[in-house]
């Protein structure tokens, strides 16, 4: 009865209004039949609009004088439909490949790419999984403009660093924020550092992992690379370095199963060239200045690291009877197994995807491995006006790593210094690399046999990581929805390092075991509302406002035991000398933010953002007031406005933006603390506390500063996107200027003040550059397609200001001979070392002994960052066969080849072997009278004092250009013709080659290398770095 009454009332009402207006209803669907929720429906030329509900249904009242509806939906072509007689109008919205690609931007908001006023590159998840890289970050290499990826070596789990538009901070994080499904995803690279370790742990130890490693690349649907700070208003200060917005695969309608499996074979791709002519010993490469006689051969000496001894096969010297290719004997063919299975289920209201991935990698270095098991569950559920999204992921990553770098137990150190007369497997112990008592069989007592070291000094680690987030959205009306999201990222990283008794890396060869547990907990909460006020006319407005709360806590517990009693038993209880340290950092940031996006007539887009942050790491005043940073961007799709012929220029957009982000300081820099120091001169591990049972606390070397201010990153950017010939040519050009002011520096102060540094806002640094992306589709036929995607990046960095009176800052303590500095007028991270002394004409000044003199002052000797990089992907598809290749070009990027210099001096390089039978005259002028140098020097002196690393040699000589051209990826795939089968819908087999070809002038390992890895703000050091790999991968993908 009641219902009847209501119906009656409605009829009455509508009848009363029918004179002036009519009501239209209908359902919006996409071409593939999905209902479209939240699509905009408007009456053309009237201030009337609505949005579709959760069933894609709309109801709109149309004034009598209007008769056209405009339907729009992000990512789909906007349609105008004239009304006919019917009051029911269902619309199928067509996708428009050219004009409106949807991209996921901050907070998971999907936007039309055309509306964005700043640069963004979308990388398909397939391209990352297809790279054959275990680490998703490394899989991005060469695939986006503005991005530089720097791997640190070819061992399992070795970190990859990523920079977008260069470095922006001296002391803070320079890598972009990673966001996975709306939740920040930690990508730290942390070494294990005992509280009493006085040096930079990045220079030795193992190749640590960046924690993006816990993400299974196969789960990635897409990566959107936000290059500027445009998203900082929504993600906070960490987005100042750009954001990697990673969206994982979601469930689809119906039921589907995907299975993929691959096996890869990894080999070393490049090694230093070694000499095979002269054995262990000293005295070789001599030159008698009086007689002019050159003596290449020296004498055999046991227990020297030098290979300046007798010629191999010299009669009567059995120790040098044969030569051995120990590098060849050392490295193995690594095998990587990768298996993934996922199940997707869904109906109209709920969709679920569950995946499991298993990666099992055995490295090129014996006894190294990586095992990753990952699960991910994504759900989406809609109930009326309420929508719920949830993700949960668990990853277990285990690895075994080997010693690297400046490390007496290190692999490359012991291996490449090894005289060719020494057989790495020549020991009389059971394994060949050992002595009968099991100790290391070595040529020089303080270096471990690197095979022995790999088996006896491993680091084993296990990470258990749980990430998840829940987001609920409630749509109150067509103009208001409110969302709340809480996410958690938690992991425990447990590591155990053992050093067998006799291992040389610990301060004494008495055996060592340490356990290090790192835990990380990040909780991130967003509450925000989207408001869509009706403005009328051709205007569309969306206003977003909200609150973000973020807390991060890192705990590090380190326990070490030295002096082991029972050999081979690695438990702290087996050690007589125990040490523990603990470090905790906890920081919080709260922010309120607002974002307004105004569109006019589908052609002009204006976006304004603002955010006020409060961070726990400031002094009292700024913790109270917080700090504000805004952004503005404008985009104009001029082809829309000008109505150009779309057969030539199909789409054209110009854009400009200025965006700011403020960044908080690192924790605990506001107060001067007392610390238990370690006192060392750099040659021993020093003296630490507790000392003989007594503790001690003295003033820290770093002064606290209550007046810290935020670092300000301001980026100006202009760009254009031009699409010709209906998508055959797609050109995107971007220019940016990134100014970083108020940069926090550990301003060094004269140590005679009693302190070495104070944290202060003094620095300024600029990045400017070009990003060009070009897509070409020369051939688009049904059974033959050819596509080219090229990206070009040029970033120029310049440090423009440091602290008063300070022109140079050591960014991170490195070697005594070389450091990585910030120098005013030079690029950040310039290599800083000794240089040759030159006269006014630039000629070397030669000392009386025939060796050039060194400039008493050190200076800039190289820039480790490239001048430009380019990635070119060519993809062919021909009757089910696809072939694609990624050519990666890097121009510039200097490296300190400390490996080569040391090996030249020790006489194991090919050059030092070949060049031993002559004397050398170094071109230059005599220090005494300026006449041309005529003092010849011996080969030994040449390779030690000129191209070596003795104190007489300038480090400048050892800086080499790290330019390369490489075939980073080559994939050949074939889609098997599937018989019409109800279950199997796709079967694909493929081969992928990684790094199959590399061209570079760099003498040593692959110049894509970094001793310090992703956990460091410096780079460009090669000091006995692990080599990189090339891979041959065979795989299978099945879809059910």
């Amino acid at each position, binding site marked *: 009865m009641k219902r009847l009454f209501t119906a009656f009332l409605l009829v009455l009402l509508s009848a009363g209004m029918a004179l002036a207006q009519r009501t239209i209803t209908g359902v919006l669907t996409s071409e593939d039949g999905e209902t479209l929720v939240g699509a905009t429906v408007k009456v053309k030329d009237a201030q009337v609009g609505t949005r579709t509900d959760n069933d894609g249904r709309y109801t709109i009242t149309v004034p009598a004088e209007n008769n056209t509806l405009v339907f729009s939906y992000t990512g789909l072509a906007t349609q105008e439909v004239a009304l006919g007689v019917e009051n029911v109008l269902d619309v199928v919205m067509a996708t428009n490949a050219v004009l409106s690609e949807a991209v996921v931007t901050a907070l998971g908001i999907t936007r039309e790419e055309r509306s964005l006023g700043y640069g963004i590159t979308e990388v398909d998840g397939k391209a990352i999984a297809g790279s054959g890289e275990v680490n998703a970050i490394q899989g991005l290499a060469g695939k986006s403009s503005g991005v530089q990826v720097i791997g640190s070596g070819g061992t399992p789990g070795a970190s990859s660093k990523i920079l977008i538009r260069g470095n922006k901070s001296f002391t803070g994080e320079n890598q972009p924020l990673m966001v996975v499904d709306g939740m920040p995803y930690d990508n730290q690279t942390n070494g294990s550092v005992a509280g009493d370790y006085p040096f930079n742990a990045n220079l030795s130890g193992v190749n640590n992992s960046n924690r993006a490693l816990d993400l299974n690349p196969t789960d990635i649907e897409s990566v959107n690379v936000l290059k500027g700070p445009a998203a900082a208003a929504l993600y906070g200060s960490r987005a100042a370095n750009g954001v990697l917005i990673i969206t994982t695969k979601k469930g689809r309608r119906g039921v589907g199963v995907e299975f993929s499996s691959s096996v890869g074979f990894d080999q070393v791709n490049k090694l230093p060239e070694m000499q095979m002519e002269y054995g262990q010993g000293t005295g070789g490469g001599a030159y008698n200045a009086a007689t002019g006689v050159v003596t290449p051969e020296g004498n055999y000496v046991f*227990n020297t690291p030098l290979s300046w001894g007798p010629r191999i096969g010299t009669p009567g010297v059995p120790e040098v009877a044969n030569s051995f290719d120990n590098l060849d004997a050392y490295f193995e063919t690594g095998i990587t197994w990768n298996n993934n299975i996922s199940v997707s289920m869904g109906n109209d209201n709920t969709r679920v995807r569950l995946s499991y991935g298993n990666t099992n990698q055995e490295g090129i270095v014996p006894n190294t491995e990586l095992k990753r098991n990952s699960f991910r569950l994504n759900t989406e559920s809609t109930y009326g006006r309420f929508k719920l999204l949830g993700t949960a992921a668990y990853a277990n990553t285990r690895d075994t790593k080997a010693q690297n770098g400046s490390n007496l137990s290190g692999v490359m150190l012991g291996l490449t210094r090894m005289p060719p007369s020494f057989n790495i497997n020549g020991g009389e112990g059971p394994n060949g690399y050992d002595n009968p008592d099991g100790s290391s069989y070595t040529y020089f007592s303080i270096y471990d046999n690197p095979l022995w070291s790999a088996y006896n000094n491993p680091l084993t680690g296990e990470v258990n990581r749980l990430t998840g987030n829940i987001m609920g959205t409630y749509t109150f009306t067509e103009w208001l929805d409110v969302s709340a999201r809480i996410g958690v990222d938690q992991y425990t990283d447990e590591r155990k390092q053992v050093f067998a008794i006799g291992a040389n890396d610990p301060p004494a060869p008495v055996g060592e075991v340490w356990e290090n547990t790192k835990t990380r907990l990040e909780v991130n909460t967003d509450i925000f509302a989207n408001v869509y006020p009706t403005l009328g006319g051709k205007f569309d407005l969306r206003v977003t406002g909200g609150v973000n709360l973020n807390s991060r806590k890192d705990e590090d517990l380190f326990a070490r035991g030295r002096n082991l009693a029972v050999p081979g038993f690695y438990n702290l209880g087996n050690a007589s000398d125990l040490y523990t340290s603990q470090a905790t950092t906890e920081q919080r940031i709260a922010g309120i933010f607002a974002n307004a996006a105004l569109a006019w007539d589908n052609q002009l887009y204006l976006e304004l953002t603002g955010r006020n942050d*409060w961070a726990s790491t400031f002094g009292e005043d700024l*913790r109270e007031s917080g700090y504000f940073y805004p952004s503005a961007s404008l985009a104009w799709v001029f082809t829309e406005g000008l109505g150009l012929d779309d057969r030539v220029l199909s789409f054209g957009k110009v854009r400009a933006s200025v965006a700011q982000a403020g960044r908080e300081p690192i924790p605990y820099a506001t107060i001067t603390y007392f610390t*238990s120091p370690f006192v060392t*001169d750099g040659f021993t*591990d020093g003296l630490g506390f507790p000392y003989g049972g007594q503790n*001690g606390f003295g003033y820290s070397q770093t*002064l606290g500063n209550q007046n810290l201010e935020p670092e300000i990153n301001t980026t100006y950017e202009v760009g254009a996107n031009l699409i010709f010939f209906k998508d055959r040519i797609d050109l995107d050009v971007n220019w940016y200027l990134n100014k970083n002011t108020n940069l926090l520096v550990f301003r060094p102060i004269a140590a*005679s*003040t009693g302190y070495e540094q104070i944290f202060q806002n003094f620095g300024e640094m600029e990045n400017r550059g070009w990003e060009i992306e070009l897509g070409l589709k020369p051939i688009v036929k049904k059974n033959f397609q050819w596509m080219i995607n090229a990206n070009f990046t040029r970033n120029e960095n310049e440090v423009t200001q440091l602290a008063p009176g300070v022109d140079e800052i050591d960014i991170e303590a490195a070697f005594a001979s070389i450091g990585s500095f910030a120098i005013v007028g030079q690029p950040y991270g310039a290599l800083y070392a000794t240089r040759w002394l030159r006269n006014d004409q630039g000629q070397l000044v030669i000392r009386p002994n025939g060796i050039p003199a060194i400039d008493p002052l050190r200076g800039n000797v190289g820039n480790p960052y490239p001048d430009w990089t380019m990635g070119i992907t060519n993809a062919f598809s021909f009757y089910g066969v696809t072939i694609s290749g990624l050519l990666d070009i890097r121009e510039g990027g200097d490296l300190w080849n400390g490996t080569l210099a040391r090996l030249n001096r020790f006489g194991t390089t090919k050059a030092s072997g070949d060049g031993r039978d002559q004397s050398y005259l170094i071109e230059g002028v005599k220090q005494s009278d300026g006449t041309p140098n005529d003092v010849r020097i011996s080969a030994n002196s040449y390779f030690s004092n000129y191209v070596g690393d003795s104190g007489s040699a300038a480090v400048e000589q050892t800086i080499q250009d790290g330019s390369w051209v490489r075939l980073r990826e080559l994939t050949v795939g074939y889609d098997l013709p599937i018989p019409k089968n109800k279950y199997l819908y796709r079967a694909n087999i493929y081969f992928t080659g990684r790094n199959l070809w590399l061209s570079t002038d760099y003498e040593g390992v692959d110049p894509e290398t970094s001793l310090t890895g992703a956990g460091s703000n410096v780079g460009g050091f090669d000091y006995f770095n692990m080599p990189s790999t090339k891979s041959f991968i065979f795989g299978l993908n099945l879809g059910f």
Partner: protein
Amino acid sequence: MKNYIKTGLLAILLAVGGYSCSNYVDGYEVSPNDPQQSNPALLTTVIEVATFSHYSGQFARYAAMMTQHCMGVQAQYEDIANYNIREGDNVNEWASHYSAINDCNTLIDLAGDANPHYRGIGRVLKAMNLAITTDLWGDVPNRQAALGLQGEAFYNPVYDNQESIYLDMQNLLDNALVDFANANNVVLPGSDDLIFGGDISNWIITAHVLKARYANRLSKKDAAGSATAALGHIDAAIAAGMTGPSSDCNAIFPGDGNSLNQWYAFEANRADYIQMGEGFINLLLNINDPRLPFYATPDSGGVIYRGTPLGSIDATTSDVGAYFASPTSNAPMVTFVEAKFIEAEAAFRAGQLPRAAQAHNDAIKAHILQVTGAPADVAYEIAQASETAGSISLEKIMTHKYVALFTQFEVYNDWRRTNIPALTPNPNGETTAIPRRLPTPQTERLYNENAPNPVISDITLPVWWDM
């Protein structure tokens, strides 16, 4: 109207948000890892450990290399042996000394009038650390040094001339002696004083011997006055109870992983970087010195003692012996034996030859007993430790001091003052003469406006007391 409501609501939201945002981040600003306070006991231990490093680490090895006790044969030590010493080489040591001086100032302040014994220890240790910096770098910051906590105005400490620094060191020691004489202490040093376990009588002796050392240092400036002053301080040390090595101020090394004797730790970490010098081994062999097997290991052949010749990189020779380089060997810093040699030298300079001869003989005999555990044999005593007023010479005193103070930084100071023993510069040297100082540290050039400009790069330039 609706818009006003919306704006109002938003404003309230922002205000509430702002308030609670600030609350959300409060309480996380203080590090849970490091304390904001220390106390005299904790500072004393820190400073003493730093001083151990300074007196037995890099500069002790550096002194051994310059005076040819040892030869550097590999890597950085080959460079030092070749006088290849650059502005960046010793920035760590520079900083470490001033850090210790800063902690000394803090200890002196924190101890205050209530704890004069702690304050006295702070003053003695400050003098000891200041001495090394000025002895190696000449004019260095002193009165304006280590005041960084007071702010920007103190970031560029001026350099004081060495003469004034030596006066300040004597003043510090005088004040320390006043402190030690004051028995009114709220807290007394104990096991936190690693050197003497809180035994103030030994600190008093050490302060007197240091005063003698620093007075005697000025022998080139004022031969007679320095001798008189040094003898006076030695007399005071004896009056304070100095009778033998039991009052020696030594660096203490318990021998755990982080408290290893630094000669041992160096040999363990940097095996074959330095070897015994040929000249020194030959000197000991020539006088048939019973300390040789304690000072040095046999060469790699295991039988004979052999040093590396000047300019050679032979690493198969003898290493520093276990007496000085076992994990737990104490490293001498201020000793009875040194006091006796100072007495001998000062007495000789003052023309008190019998006293000089007696002190010389006593020093040698005491040291042989201390090192070998047995008195010198008769033949050795007759040959080396039986000098008389007629036979004693500066050459003999300083040569035996050179032998006795092996591994100590003092030998480099002594050699610079007296040129004894006569040393030939390394023929491969970057400089033609043996260096007499260190170059201005790179960090001072870069960050201290008051550093010498131009910097001092010539390492053969003598410091003030060496001129």
